[in-house]
């Protein structure tokens, strides 16, 4: 598809026009270097230079609390209706890490049996990406998972070129919008400038762990008995912050509420967290993940190990939110580095840890220096 140009001082007009067509949400400063996606009506409130928001855009696709069913038990036989509030919405300024997060969730919820609540919302959301030319902060690991460059998952994608944005149009919906707004097509000179931006980024963004994704998956799988889990488990608060802010965590719980008439009610789902004490408890009382260490390990497995097998991609987007939000200073980067270091000392025969009985799914000898 095409590339178009928008002058930065025309962004306000762009947002205002867009807001006449649908609700527009964009990153907004909340103070203390915190940002959140919120509804905007002009470009004035938008924070173009922002670090990942408190909650990722997943909140628009899968709201923290959502009604799945309404029911009525007043008659002889119960009745229920499933419905969804799928508002037409544009999200402006989505970084490449969060675009990757949405792509991951799309795969999960499109897999059969499908989750139509998610799918119907997704169909009504128009996504406008925004490129990062440098790191947001030291918590990010986007280069590790290759998410510092755009890789689809948007309708339009904005990259800053001096006093202009060059816009990549990725869908027909996107094409219709920029054509409707009469944005000029980008000349070849702009495309060359875009190449330069991407080339400069190559030097800025470097794999933060020093190990490629596939090798890392192998290391995580092989380090299931690592003391690293005990160490982070001993600090963990079990508050669920890391999973709630994760763009690819989608675990949920469901509950029924009955109205005071005791005849009608509804069924809701709420984001849940594998870090919570009772997450893996069965009705008889047995807790299959009673220790914090095991729960932290489970979280890392679900980002770096399991999804590579199932969806052929990492479910860590590199956004760094889990590190920023942790009440106990548990850093993803440090955790991964510790696992890699431990793995090296084991493979060099200097480690004090016996090798795991679990099969390796990657080759530890591929660890780069």
């Amino acid at each position, binding site marked *: 598809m095409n590339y178009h140009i928008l002058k930065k001082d025309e962004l306000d007009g762009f947002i205002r026009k867009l807001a006449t067509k649908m609700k527009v949400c964009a990153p907004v400063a909340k103070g203390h270097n915190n940002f959140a996606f919120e509804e905007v009506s002009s470009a004035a409130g938008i924070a173009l230079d922002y670090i990942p928001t408190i909650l990722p855009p997943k909140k628009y696709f899968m709201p923290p609390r959502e009604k*799945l*069913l309404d*029911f009525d*038990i007043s008659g002889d*036989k*119960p009745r*229920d*209706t*499933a*419905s*969804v*509030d*799928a*508002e*037409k919405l544009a999200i402006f300024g989505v970084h490449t890490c969060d675009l990757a997060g949405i792509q991951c969730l799309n795969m*999960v*919820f499109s897999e059969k*049996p*499908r*989750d*139509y*609540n998610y799918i*119907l919302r997704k169909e009504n959301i128009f996504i406008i990406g925004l490129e990062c030319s440098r790191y947001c902060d030291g918590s990010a690991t986007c280069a590790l998972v290759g998410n510092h460059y755009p890789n689809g998952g948007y309708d339009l994608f904005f990259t800053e070129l001096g006093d202009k944005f060059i816009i990549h149009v990725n869908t027909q919906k996107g094409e219709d919008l920029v054509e409707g707004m009469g944005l000029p097509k980008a000349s070849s000179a702009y495309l060359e400038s875009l190449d330069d931006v991407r080339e400069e980024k190559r030097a800025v963004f470097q794999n933060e762990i020093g190990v490629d994704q596939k090798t890392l998956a192998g290391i995580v*799988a092989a380090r*299931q008995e690592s003391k690293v889990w005990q160490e982070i488990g001993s600090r963990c608060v079990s508050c669920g912050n890391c999973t709630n802010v994760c763009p690819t965590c*989608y*675990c*949920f*719980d*469901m*509950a*029924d*509420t*009955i109205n005071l008439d*005791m005849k009608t*009610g509804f*069924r809701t789902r709420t984001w*849940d967290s*594998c870090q919570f004490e009772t*997450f*893996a*408890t*069965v*009705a*008889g*009382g*047995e807790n*299959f*993940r009673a220790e914090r260490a*095991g729960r932290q*390990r*489970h979280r890392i*497995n*679900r980002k770096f*190990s*399991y999804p590579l*097998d*199932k969806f052929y991609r990492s479910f860590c987007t590199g956004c760094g939110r889990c590190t920023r939000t942790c009440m106990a200073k548990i850093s993803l980067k440090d955790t991964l580095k510790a696992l890699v270091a431990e793995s090296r000392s084991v493979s060099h025969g200097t480690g004090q840890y016996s090798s795991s009985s*679990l*099969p390796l799914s990657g080759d530890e000898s591929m660890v780069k220096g």
Partner: protein
Amino acid sequence: MTEEITHSNWKLRKGQIIAAKQMTASEKWFDIKLDDGRLDHEPGQFVQVELYGIGEAPISVCSSPTKRGSFELTVRAAGRLTKAMHALGKGDWVGIRGPFGKPFPVKLMTGNDLLFVAGGLGIAPLRSLINYVVDNRREFGKVDILLGCKTPKDMLFGDEVSGWQKRLDVNFSCTVDRSDPDWKGNVGLITGLIPGVTINPEKTFSVVVGPPIMYKFVIAELLKKGIPERQIILSLERHMKCGMGKCGHCQIDHPKNYYCCKDGPTFTYEEVKAAKKL
């Protein structure tokens, strides 16, 4: 803009309880008829039972697919929902989603000898398979059933169990942890019954269902008998909430991170031996 989702996977089928019976102090049996046709399950699968306004619980179907018109559940009063379910009786309605999960590999087992090992409530999902086998007896080789429960009073499906016991084409043994004066059978752990069974390991499939603690010891005995790991079938217990492999609650700590509700609940021992807990 609120849109109705007519094809939502969250919608509930409506089941009416057509019979119910208290089986033991803590287990109740229900016969349920769906208003929109058959459940169409296979042995080993489960359903989500919704008590409107209280919530849902995953329950194994304990009747054989060869039973037409309705399906049966045996519910132990363990949690909030199952306790509330014990208050239900004939004529009451429940919501049903499912059937969910991977059934027992009946096709693979056809033509082979079968060794069933059931502990406690494990007899419920196994009964679905045992009755299927009994109804299609010619398709299978030798059949052994080993049953264990806490006390004689905890024995489930007593009439049916004595029916199996009387059959000449089924070998049946039973043991209790604690005896009572009327009990004339074995006393002790179910693992004690395994060495006494004569088997041809190459052509034997063993299906084991019971509390998590039972698996380790039973499997060790079966392996001693020489039964290949891929012919030992288990049904694992986890809290299966959505039934669709999404909500995350039933995921197993295993290199393959199986979802019990979708990849299981039935697994071969070969598949799950690397799990942290069975």
